[in-house]
């Protein structure tokens, strides 16, 4: 899949934002006043900024409100609702915290659940797609949720909880990569099944439909070099998990360590998220790629 900046920024920032807000909603930390103002500004800024970034991905963003209509079937629609609910409840909770020095715990708890649910819905947008085997797995929501909470907890400065959540996120990330690499082959999608010609022999694209490119190729058939991907995985994992954990473990808990840790975390998460898209093989590639490319897909 094309690693579109808008979608990467959206998922990373809103994931982190809602993760942070969720912790705030749980009262961890139970901030009020100016501290709360800055915390919520940061949380809402990232969550809303991410959501706004996602609209850059739309062909007709002026109709975005229509996306609230199909919550019965569409995870994107559910995400829209959940994010609004999360923002509303967390907003009310934040008003109490910032302006009235009051923490209305049930509001915060409901808000936190919606934050959590929003990230889950975001993840399900990807996880539901049978066309992208790498994503189409229960690890995908776990991956995005664990990162959201781990990132959030770094900002929330909750001490050793961060280390634990980073460890979980690290394991999930590793599993997502390791199992993800096998998913396409496990699903049994091949050019033979894609064309239905497998009974006749082995099938190979000999001439693409157009010599030029198209939306599908640009959007869904993104080929990333294996070496390049491995390098990014190492860098991403280091930035996202190892370095923040090291910073948090070695430096005393506080603003400075949180800033350093979250900076590493963000960089690492951007790398990871770039790979999340770039490495996601869409089955439509079977109609467009030759055996060589498929070998790469099935590696």
């Amino acid at each position, binding site marked *: *899949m094309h690693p579109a900046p808008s979608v990467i920024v959206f998922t990373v920032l809103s994931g982190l934002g809602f993760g942070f807000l969720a912790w705030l909603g749980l009262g961890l930390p139970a901030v009020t006043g100016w501290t709360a103002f800055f915390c919520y500004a940061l949380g809402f800024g990232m969550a809303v900024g991410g959501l706004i970034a996602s609209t850059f*991905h*739309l*062909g*007709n*963003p002026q*109709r*975005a409100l*229509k*996306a*609230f*209509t*199909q919550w*019965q*079937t*569409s*995870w*994107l*629609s559910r995400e*829209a609702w959940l994010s609004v609910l999360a923002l509303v409840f967390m907003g009310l909770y934040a008003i109490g915290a910032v302006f009235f020095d009051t923490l209305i715990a049930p509001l915060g708890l409901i808000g936190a659940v919606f934050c959590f649910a929003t990230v889950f819905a975001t993840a399900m*947008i990807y996880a*539901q*797609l*049978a*066309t992208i085997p790498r994503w189409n797995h229960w690890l995908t929501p776990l991956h995005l949720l664990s990162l959201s909470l781990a990132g959030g907890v770094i900002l929330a400065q909750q001490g050793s909880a961060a280390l634990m959540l980073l460890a979980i996120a690290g394991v999930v990330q590793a599993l997502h990569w390791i199992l993800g690499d096998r998913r396409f082959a496990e*699903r*049994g*999608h091949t*050019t033979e*099944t*894609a*064309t*239905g*010609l497998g*009974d*006749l*022999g*082995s*099938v*190979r*694209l*000999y*001439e*693409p*439909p*157009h010599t*030029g*490119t*198209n*939306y*599908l190729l*640009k*959007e*869904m058939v993104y080929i990333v070099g294996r070496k390049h991907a491995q390098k990014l995985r190492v860098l991403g994992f280091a930035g996202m998990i190892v370095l923040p954990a090291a910073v948090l473990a070695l430096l005393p808990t506080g603003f400075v360590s949180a800033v350093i840790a979250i900076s590493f975390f963000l960089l690492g998460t951007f790398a990871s998220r770039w790979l999340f898209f770039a490495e996601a093989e*869409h*089955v*439509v590639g*079977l*109609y*467009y790629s030759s055996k060589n490319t498929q070998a790469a897909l099935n590696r």
Partner: protein
Amino acid sequence: MTQLPTQTDKKLGLVIDLDTCVGCHACVTACKGWNTENYGAPLSDIDPYSGDPVGSFLNRVHSFEVQPTAGPAQTVHMPKSCLHCDDAPCVTVCPTGASYKRQEDGIVLVNEDACIGCGLCAWACPYGARELDQAAGVMKKCTLCVDRIYNENLPEEDRVPACVRTCPAGARHFGDFADPDSNVSRLTKERGGMDLMPEQGTSPVNKYLPPRPKDTMKDLDASAPQLAPVVDGPKGLLGWLDKALEAI
């Protein structure tokens, strides 16, 4: 609307005969011509005269090569457009209801007025049947020429999709799969019409007729009975000729 109808009254779709398609791309541009002028936004072409032209097409012909375990490789041309799946994942993912499957005939359409251009339906489609128009920002897909097949301004024989009407080899057939006696149902049954990527569970309506077995002719030895010579050489010819001419 993003809920799929539990059942449609008709199941309109195409049968594409891979034994007959010569890969001429006629269906590709006939489709482009009709659908740029008709349903919804025009099918744009970005940088059409430059180094990297990108246009919206609702139907494209892929050319594959099949290598059997024995015998020479074969070439198969495969036109591909929306398969109007019964379990169309592109419909249920749509957040706005723009993407829908018609109750009356099962055609999967995009209501462009409601489309926000998020692209998720294209992601959900295993077949690459949907293309986001880069100029209009809305999702384009095969409409099965819904504005032709019922169009009372067209003569009855022309009320078929543009690709079917134009196909020179007659490799494309249009009809109602819900009717077991329809041309498409019969062809599917007789010729073993198949689904593309059935493991995706989309239950495509469109069917592909597989190529007939190829290169089945067996080499003949000189001693084969049908090769029994009537003459040994030019000399023997005259005798045979006399007899043969008498027989005429």
